């Protein structure tokens, strides 16, 4: 029903706008492309392989700083110890957390099902959980406010539709989806400037976020040649070619250099 309403409104809107200003960004709903008509890719679990590796940081990581949560007493109240910034998080051996690794090339023409399970982005203790994550095009993103304060989810994508939603009370939730592939879409909260998060939007399920020790693993990959990309919010992007043999395992490890 909502969709019917929306297209009716769009039609009226365009009619009205034609009279005066020209129809700005209208007609963005055309989701039909060649890929959509392609059959779903069948991945044979018997031959599928894995891409794994570790993201490392060479050099001294910039020091994390304590967030000034006193700016909102509602937030400060929720933490006993200071919360540190998450721009660069490393372990003792230089393993770099929160890097987004994904198959950047090699899957062209293949279409994968959209998971029905939503992804949850939680605002808890005035930080985003998780800080970096991935989602598929069309997959539901459930944004939840677990705090007794106002948060606003302000997404500023380049390819997707910008949105900005206020959640003034605890336990409010909003569901959004993304229409276009985009690595990465930044989120922030304008009320709490320290809060930021990133989501990688892809049209396939082959992505991962590096863990505490910097390692990651992407499973169930059909054999073939791929470009693997990695993104980090401070150190930017890198990529490399890997070949996944049937039932094999390919390594894609990356090293960033800390620049000061």
């Amino acid at each position, binding site marked *: 029903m909502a969709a019917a309403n929306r297209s009716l*409104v769009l039609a009226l809107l365009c009619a009205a706008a034609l009279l005066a200003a020209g129809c700005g960004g209208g007609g963005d709903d055309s989701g039909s492309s060649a890929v959509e008509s392609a059959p779903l890719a069948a991945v044979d679990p018997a031959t599928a392989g894995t891409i794994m590796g570790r993201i490392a940081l060479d050099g001294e990581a910039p020091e994390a700083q304590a967030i000034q949560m006193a700016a909102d007493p509602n937030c400060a109240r929720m933490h006993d110890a200071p919360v540190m910034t998450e721009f660069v998080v490393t372990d003792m051996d230089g393993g770099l957390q929160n890097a987004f690794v994904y198959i950047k090339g090699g899957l062209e023409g293949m279409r994968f099902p959209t998971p029905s399970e939503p992804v949850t982005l939680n605002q808890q203790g005035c930080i985003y959980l998780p800080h970096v994550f991935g989602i598929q095009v069309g997959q539901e993103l459930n944004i939840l406010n677990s705090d007794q304060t106002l948060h606003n989810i302000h997404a500023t994508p380049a390819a997707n539709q910008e949105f900005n939603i206020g959640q*003034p009370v605890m336990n409010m939730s909003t569901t959004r989806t993304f229409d276009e592939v985009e690595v990465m879409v930044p989120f922030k909260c304008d009320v709490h400037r320290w809060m930021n998060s990133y989501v990688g939007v892809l049209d396939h399920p082959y992505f991962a976020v590096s863990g505490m020790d910097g390692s990651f693993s992407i499973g169930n990959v059909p054999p073939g040649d791929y470009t693997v990309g990695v993104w980090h919010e401070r150190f930017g992007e890198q990529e490399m070619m890997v070949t996944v043999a049937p039932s094999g395992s390919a390594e894609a490890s990356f090293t960033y250099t800390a620049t000061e």
Partner: protein
Amino acid sequence: MAHAKESFISKYIFSFDHKMIGKQYFTLAMIMGFIGGILAVLIRLQLGFPSQPWPFLENLFPVGMASGIMTPEFYVSLFTMHGTIMVFFLLSLLPVSGFGNFLIPLQIGARDMAFPFLNMLSFWTVVPGAIIIIISFFVEGGAAASGWTAYPPLSAIRSAIPGSGAGQTLWLVGMIFFVASFTMGGLNFVVTILNLRTKGLRLMRMPLTTWAQFVVGILGLLSFPALAAGAILLTFDRSLGTSFFLPAGIFIGDTLMPHEGGTPLLWQHLFWFLGHPEVYIIMLPAMGFTSDVLATFCRRPIFGYRSMVYAIMAIGTLSFLVWGHHMFVSGMSPFLGSLFVVTTLAIAIPSAVKAFNWLFTIAKAKIRFTTAALFALAVVSLFVTGGLTGIFLGTNATDIQLHDTYFVVGHFHFIMAGAGLFGAFAAVYFWYPKMFGRKLNERIGKIHFWITFVAYYAVFFPMHYLGVAGMMRRIYDPNVYEYLQPLQPVNLFITISAFVLFAGQLLFLWNYFVSMRRGETATGNPWDAAGLEWSTPAKPGHGNWEGDIPEVHRWPYDYSRPDRKRDFVGQWES
């Protein structure tokens, strides 16, 4: 007059008859006013019961009230659109475009307005404006959300607030339609009044309503183009990357904007150059209605007719010299601030003249308490209350503390919205027989009056307390501030009163539509009034007078002449 039978379309849709066009404006304004009222109820719902869930409202507003809780961005859209709709589409359309069109030819003895086609065109120009404004609620991001004043950069940069996307674009387009329509209307008013007066109707014999409409026409012609210019420049800033209102270094949504060289203060000057005359565009007709209605039901000439006319002119002139009092704390030069204090408080003088003249019209009267009379008496009370609070705001030193608080909200809801609305009600109850040949039901009318009058004071007077205590306007939840938390009972009281006020208006709508068919039939002059319009038949046809247009022999307030037996002498009587 023996007219060829008109088709439905030429009679009711694309009519050239000023009376039908007036009624069309009326209907449109009432629809818009009803919507604006619903928005007000929603605003008060949030302030009375902050962030409470109302699950049933989720069905109506799936985005703005997701899970039944109002989002802050929806709240901002609500008061933005409440202000826009009420100021422009109710309080300007109904008294000016509606009554102006309906009454001017009748009061000056003309067959129609000077430019009937332009008149029809002006109505059909405002209709798309109204439709666009309503549609803007349903676009991505919701309706415009930068206040009815649309201050940039908030209104200029799309990522500043959700409503600044498509909603703000539609707001600007809607306003441009409105301005186009209103300018055509103003031109028509001025030309008609200057050229089409019947024989004997000197300017100083015109009813005060027509005087007000004349000055309003001039005000509209001179001030609305400023808004049109501003709206077009703002559209350029939003869509073409110009920087009329945007300086360098604006950083929103983690993006540094590419603009440079503009200033937001330019918009404020352009907007308030319209915005303040606009207040008097709303006020002056209400003053005119009040004078005409009071004279009729007090059975007395209006006191100090000449000074009333001069007061209207003085207010009209001064209204162009005071816009800066909206900008005392804006960062404008402090010297300008001082200048605007003098001009602003000067308006108190003609306003006081009006208030005292009304008081002395009522004194020595023999009041007939019709519903119209009650509403007109209420205008006098509201006008004085709202006028006096204006002195706090017009004095720049005291404005510092009260600026952008609920004191301002209370103030303008008395002086502009209140007097404007009550004046319009007085006019509807008074001239309804001329519009439809029937009277509105007086019993329902009186109930409507009492609910409206008492609830109006109950809603808006306590807002002054809130303002004095420091509560800002346009905030979604005052309880965020500790010093505002003790005010919650006042907010709750206002909210409940506002619900009553809204419910009372449903009575009026019912009365208005039912009385069209079932009301008591009226004669041509049911109130024993002396104005020229009452010499027409009960329901005047196209052309207004069946025979020749009568000659005017006197002013419209010849009541209770000691040398006559009857207590009024019509303008048309020698």
